[in-house]
């Protein structure tokens, strides 16, 4: 018999987060077209991720099947069912940036943060992701970090960037 989901549940949303989630999702009751905007809002308050518990609240409040919510959140790269850090570093790996040395930048980020792409630092501050074109090809290689484009990156600039980003962010 395969392992039951109840044995390996790792949901960690607090009661407060679930309450806020319910309030946001209730605005989209019986309005399935609101799912994507609502998931954006929910993700912002639920630790940059939409885990099982949070999704169940969204499903209940919007009156949508859980399968629909999970299908949508796994389809779009900006959503994640996995817990992520406070700051998400999205490093563009598409061809124009690739040509200008994304690989070296990625290695610099991995070394500075001590994690691989797709992982989150132990203190929960940073998640490092590689992503497809962010439309900043005029300043390749580039990364999108908390809504801001950081362009013309060089491996040497990375550690300084990481420490300035980390300032003021509580672990």
């Amino acid at each position, binding site marked *: 018999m395969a392992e*039951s989901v109840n044995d390996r549940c790792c949901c960690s949303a607090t009661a407060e987060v679930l309450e806020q989630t319910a309030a946001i999702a209730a605005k989209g009751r019986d309005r399935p077209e609101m799912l994507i905007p609502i998931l954006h809002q929910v993700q912002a308050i639920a630790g940059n991720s939409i885990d099982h518990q949070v999704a169940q609240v969204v499903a209940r409040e919007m009156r949508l099947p859980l399968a*629909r919510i*999970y299908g949508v959140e796994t389809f779009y790269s900006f959503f994640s069912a996995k817990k992520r850090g406070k700051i998400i570093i999205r490093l563009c790996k598409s061809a124009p940036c690739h040509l200008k040395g994304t690989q070296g930048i990625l290695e610099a980020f991995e070394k500075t943060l001590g994690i691989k792409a797709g992982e989150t630092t132990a203190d929960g501050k940073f998640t490092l992701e590689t992503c497809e074109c962010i439309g900043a090809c005029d300043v390749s290689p580039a990364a999108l970090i908390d809504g801001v484009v950081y362009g013309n990156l060089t491996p040497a600039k990375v550690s300084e960037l990481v420490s300035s980003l980390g300032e003021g962010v509580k672990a």
Partner: protein
Amino acid sequence: MLNVTIDGQPLQVEKGTTILEACEFLGIEIPTLCNLEYLSPEGACRMCVVEVKGIQNLQVSCATPCTEGMEVTTMNERIYAFRRLIIELLLANHNTDCFNCSANGECKLYQYAMEYEVEKTRFVNTRGTPPVDDSNKFFNYDPAKCILCHRCVRVCNERQSNRTLGLIDRGVKTTMGLPFDQLFIDSNCVSCGNCVSVCPTGALTTKASKKFRPWEVTKTRTTCPYCGVGCQLDLLVKNGKVVGVEPADGKANQGLLCVKGKFAYNFINHPDRLKTPLIRKEGVLTPVGWDEALDFVTAGIKKIREESGPDAIAGFSSSRTTNEDNYVFMKMMRAAIGTNNVDNCARV
């Protein structure tokens, strides 16, 4: 009416007819994997492609509507090669341990691989072997045999409206499954088994189907006895015993069944099954004939009615009987016995 020509044969069809339907009318067989009657056409598997004169790309016959003057070719070298490649692509990520698969003999992928002479795929497996979900009491799900035709997802969402199954992730990582890696047993699945019935491969199979091969069974069409809906089904019989049930395309059920119709057939050969009426004689339930049993009941009802009046009696009928039988039962309670104490167990 629209005039179309298929493989040189002229045909008149009604507006809204798909190329596939027109082909069926002419007896031209087109291979399909994702298409199924009563499900919305998806055009996803691309097996049913045909050539339409004047259009450069191949068109899926399952979803493309006929238009006036349309000229269709259903088979040529290009179409053959295209379908062959689709089979090869699907086989690359399909567990081809067919010997051990209970869909052996019914698998559409296997059938088309034979028809299109694909013995081995030239492509590599890119997905590995994900684990089987055997948590459901009646069926198993083996993702390594799923070809992502979405039939199960559509039957679950569009027809059964249980909305348990969905598509997860995208691109090459796309899978059919349950949210958050749930197992069937932990989900809101009601075990209706319709996903199993529509699966064209061995991805979703009943647990019982391991014990027989399709060519070993005879099919007996009958009406499901569980409720008054009248779903049509085929009993699969091997060596005089019912080993499985398949939904049939009846007016009432159009290819669907519920958990009872699909899976609850083991009582037939069960040793505890009641085959005759029983009357408790001197504290022991004893088998009797129908005449004796009915006389016993009639005498009992009459006695209670005389001693305590008709309202001391209540009648409760079964939802497994027909509406007509329930009506007559109601009449008997009200007119013959004289009480309004009558009810039926149907509450779903």
